[in-house]
């Protein structure tokens, strides 16, 4: 039993490495900028959803307010760069740390809530944050921040001629988020989180300090999501409150994990690979003048998946894994 477990972990790692290498080679064959753009977004949402999955999937604290941390990352990076000339790399780190800190400060009162009440609190808090930013003149209020573009540079993490650097960074981000999850899965934190999700009273009786476990999950999750937000700010080089902190981001982080398999290692990536291209493609091909047909298609797919496979699509690939997890 011990060896089969270790084998599965090793196999996961090998599969991930193969997928990462394959993904890294794709731009050699795909030169279309529009498609490359979709690939960047897919990888970014895979990373975001993987991070969301840590708190909501593994630890079971469903958050529909992660747009807050995404926006915090984006705003921290953009503000530090435009106001103080701090390089985005430091902005990324600062955004991550601020988000982790805020996640714990918010967790302090909110983790006393259970189930639906926790979800409602996360939505409301993210909405309040959105309103605050919209009315914060120094941070550009509703107009947002235009990040000045001064030519291609890794130092400033800006690229105008090619999407490829963004693609590779997004790929690295997705790999990091996956590796963190992979590592956490077989750590005491991973076990505590799953125990807390399944039965907090039993977890407490087994020496798990439930509250601290939730705080840890929130901090890791918020940190990674904020790094994604920082990346997004650099990628689009213009941010405003609605475009980085809107409720849709909270949903777009949650849905890939839910569709792919919530609380699983591979669910978020699988979900992102299916959902994000679909979102983008339906929007550009049947959205536009139709106004909403894309959303109908999108919604229908989610309904179908949740009816046919409420535990997520990941189980289709390996029935053994589905029973072991």
């Amino acid at each position, binding site marked *: *039993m*011990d060896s*089969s*477990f270790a084998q599965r972990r090793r196999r996961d790692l090998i599969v991930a490495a193969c997928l990462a290498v394959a993904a890294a080679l794709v731009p050699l064959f795909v030169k279309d900028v529009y498609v490359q753009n979709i690939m960047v977004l897919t990888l970014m949402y895979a990373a975001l959803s993987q991070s969301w999955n840590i708190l909501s999937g593994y630890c079971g604290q469903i958050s529909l307010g992660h747009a807050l941390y995404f926006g915090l990352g984006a705003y921290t990076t953009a503000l530090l760069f435009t106001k103080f000339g701090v390089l985005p790399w430091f902005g990324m780190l600062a955004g991550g740390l601020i988000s982790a800190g805020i996640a714990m400060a918010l967790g302090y009162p909110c983790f006393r809530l259970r189930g639906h009440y926790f979800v409602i609190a996360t939505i409301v808090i993210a909405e309040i944050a959105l309103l605050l930013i919209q009315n914060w003149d120094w941070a550009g209020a509703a107009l947002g921040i235009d990040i000045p573009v001064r030519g291609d540079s890794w130092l400033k993490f800006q690229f105008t001629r090619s999407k490829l650097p963004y693609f590779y960074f997004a790929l690295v981000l997705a790999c990091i988020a996956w590796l963190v999850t992979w590592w956490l899965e*077989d*750590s*005491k934190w991973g*076990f*505590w989180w*799953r*125990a807390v*999700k*399944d*039965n907090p*009273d*039993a*977890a*407490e*009786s*087994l*020496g*798990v*300090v*439930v509250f601290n476990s939730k705080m840890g999950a929130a901090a890791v999750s918020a940190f990674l999501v904020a790094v994604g937000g920082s990346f997004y700010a650099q990628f689009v080089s213009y941010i405003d409150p609605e475009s980085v902190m809107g409720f849709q981001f909270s949903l777009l982080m949650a849905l890939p994990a839910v569709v792919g398999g919530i*609380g699983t290692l591979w669910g978020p990536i699988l979900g992102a690979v299916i959902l994000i291209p679909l979102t983008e493609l339906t929007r550009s091909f049947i959205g536009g003048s139709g106004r909403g047909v894309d959303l109908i298609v999108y919604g229908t797919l989610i309904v179908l998946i949740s009816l046919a496979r409420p535990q997520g699509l990941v189980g289709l690939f390996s029935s053994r894994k589905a*029973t*072991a*997890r």
Partner: protein
Amino acid sequence: MTPLLETRGVWQRFGGLVANSDVSISVVPGEIVGLIGPNGAGKSTLFNLIAGVLPPTQGSIWFDGEDVTKMPAAERCQRGIGRTFQVVKSFETMSVIDNVIVGALVRNTAMRVARRKAYEVLEFCGLAARADVLASDLVPSEKRRLEVARALATEPKLLLLDEVLTGLTAVEAKTGVELVRKVRATGVTVLMVEHVMEIVMPLVDRAIVLDLGKVLIEGKPKDVVRDPKVISAYLGDRHAVSA
């Protein structure tokens, strides 16, 4: 011998209801003590006070020479109090071995060690063959044993068993009784709540009978079952007289 566990004048009130009134009991190392009594006697309340689910309204609880009255449940587990739940609380989406690993992590921070420890405990409890099965797929008697295994993995000094033998078939109950004896043989002290007398009486060294929130009587099982007060508490006064 100095007691491992001691409650001193413990009261628990829920609004106007007095669930425990002035309960003072003690358990010495190596004992199997049965906490019995009819429904509503306050057994589960006392059990939860000892496990740290809630603090008593009044009185104090001492474990291993330390006042643990205000200590939260997780910390009491770290000190050496393990417990099971009357209504089983398995981690349903986790495998059997993973359930037990959660318990083993209290004393072992290295995953490899915790996994090995968990596997040993499963063997001890006769669940090793089911290690990779999801907890939700176990049959009820196996779930009860998983509860015990999980608690044992925390390496408790005192194991609190909440009706682990209730609702089992005769054969299952016998296996359960043997498991409890085995647990005690490894040096773990056991305090068990039961209301099925015929199962628990041959097993325990000492029985404490609760009735209406108070300690009615305590002593050797064979004396306790003959005591008129106990019979009247269970069956009513008429039977006590005829006995």
